[in-house]
């Protein structure tokens, strides 16, 4: 298992497609139809990364991103949008999304790379945590 991934998109066809695609690539994938549903999934299940659309009913992607940053600072968030505007890209950057990928038509490579990079960064942290497990509290990060 390469990692746990949550796909958030209001269009079921896109959700299903991404669900299949990343499962095939070896991820454990969950899905949600909007920001609120996504938060409900996150309360139940630990996730490593979220791929979220921006324009969605109930709760849009930028609000979800903000909420994830507040509640789950460790989760990596990759935004995708079909509506390419500077405002969208800036909103993603200000709220510290990993990246903003424009819904690609001919190549999924950029999205795959983004997920791969996010998972690799998490893996590095987890390695660090494992190394620190043997240390007592207060000694963390300090050389003996």
């Amino acid at each position, binding site marked *: 298992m390469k990692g746990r991934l949550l796909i958030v998109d209001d269009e079921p066809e896109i959700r299903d497609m991404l669900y299949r695609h990343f499962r095939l690539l070896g991820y454990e994938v969950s899905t949600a139809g909007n920001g609120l549903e996504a938060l409900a999934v996150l309360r139940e299940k630990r996730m490593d990364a979220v791929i979220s659309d921006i324009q969605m009913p109930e709760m849009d992607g930028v609000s979800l991103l903000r909420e994830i940053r507040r509640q789950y600072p460790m989760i990596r968030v990759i935004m995708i949008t079909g509506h390419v505007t500077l405002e969208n890209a800036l909103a993603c950057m200000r709220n510290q999304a990993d990246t903003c990928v424009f819904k690609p*038509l001919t190549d999924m490579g950029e999205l795959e790379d983004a997920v791969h990079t996010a998972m690799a960064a998490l893996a590095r942290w987890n390695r660090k945590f494992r190394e620190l497990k043997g240390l007592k509290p207060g000694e963390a990060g300090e050389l003996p």
Partner: protein
Amino acid sequence: MRILIADDDIISRSVLTLLLQKTGHTVVSAMDGHEAWQVLQRSDAPRLAILDWMMPGMDGLQVVQRVRRRTTDQPPYLIMLTTKGDGESLVRALDAGADDYLSKPYNPEELRARIAVGERLVRMQETLATHAREMEALAQARTRQLLHADRMATLGALAAGIAHEINNPAFFIAGNAQTLQRSWDLLVQHLEATPLPKTDPQMAFVLEEAPRMLAGIFKGVDRISRIVKGLKGYAHRGSGEKSACHMQEILSDVMEFCQNVLKPQIRVCIQLPDTLPPVLANRQQIEQVLINLIRNAMDAMADCEGGSLKISGHTEGPLVCIAVADQGPGLPPEVLARIFAPFFTTKKAGEGTGLGLAISRSIMEEHGGDLFACNAPAGGAVFTLRLPAFHAAHALTPIKGDTP
């Protein structure tokens, strides 16, 4: 000029007529106020009238009042002629709307001079009216342009909306196809280990055709992706902002637009070097200028059996030049002198507004470039537009260049 004389006295009418004819005027005479009023209402009414005050029926003062009540863009110049020499009568006549006042007996020289004043004013009024008509036509043409721009903006918004709507379904078609492609590759790998019986013709078909089906889907998605890109490009075209544009791209769009004006017997030859630098321009406006030049070139070659339209590009210092050359009859000197003047056209009435080249030149000047015409030594007309190259415009280099 034509002058109306209204006087009930036959002798003074004849004297006046003779005097006017001697100074080269044409006389229309009326025997009383009613007749004068009839004449003045006609569309070809004289533009200057000398009215006797005292006439039976309708007097001169009443005629003046009636004329002034009527609104027309070219009112006649009215001179009141009377024996009443007092100041009070003069004021009454002028207040009623007379332009001038002459008391009998008059000095023929004074009459001539006063008519000359009237004639001058009438001419001025005509010039003004012509200008007003021209301005009105210009305003109408501009309004049409604005309406067109507005329609283009609406189309642009529509194109952006369509692009967005197409994008989502295209995304999941493309995504699914890519996942399917990888699944298929996995399946084929497994089959290599445990092959299906080769004898099953249907399986053989699937194994052979499935990759082609996938390729077909990818091809379709690729085309949709290009259409979406085009629509997005179109949506951004309408905005009045200038950006770096490649003349090659602009011209290829222009040639698409011009398909309906190109004639099969005319060969189109485009020579834009790849090294041509990008220009700083409002793409839509430059397209408009080029379309206009190509249309004019086609019109110039309307009577030609063959010939070619040549569009070439080169640089002159910081300027990018595009020349549109036809093999028509060329431009006579009197046409060449006025060709960019608003309302100047060599086309039949109703066919050309005489504004195309005027607007084109103003667009080019607004871009910090220019547009000029000349005749090629080998015959035919050449229109050349020049635009600052993008890097030059960006560095705010002043544009220098000699207009031939």
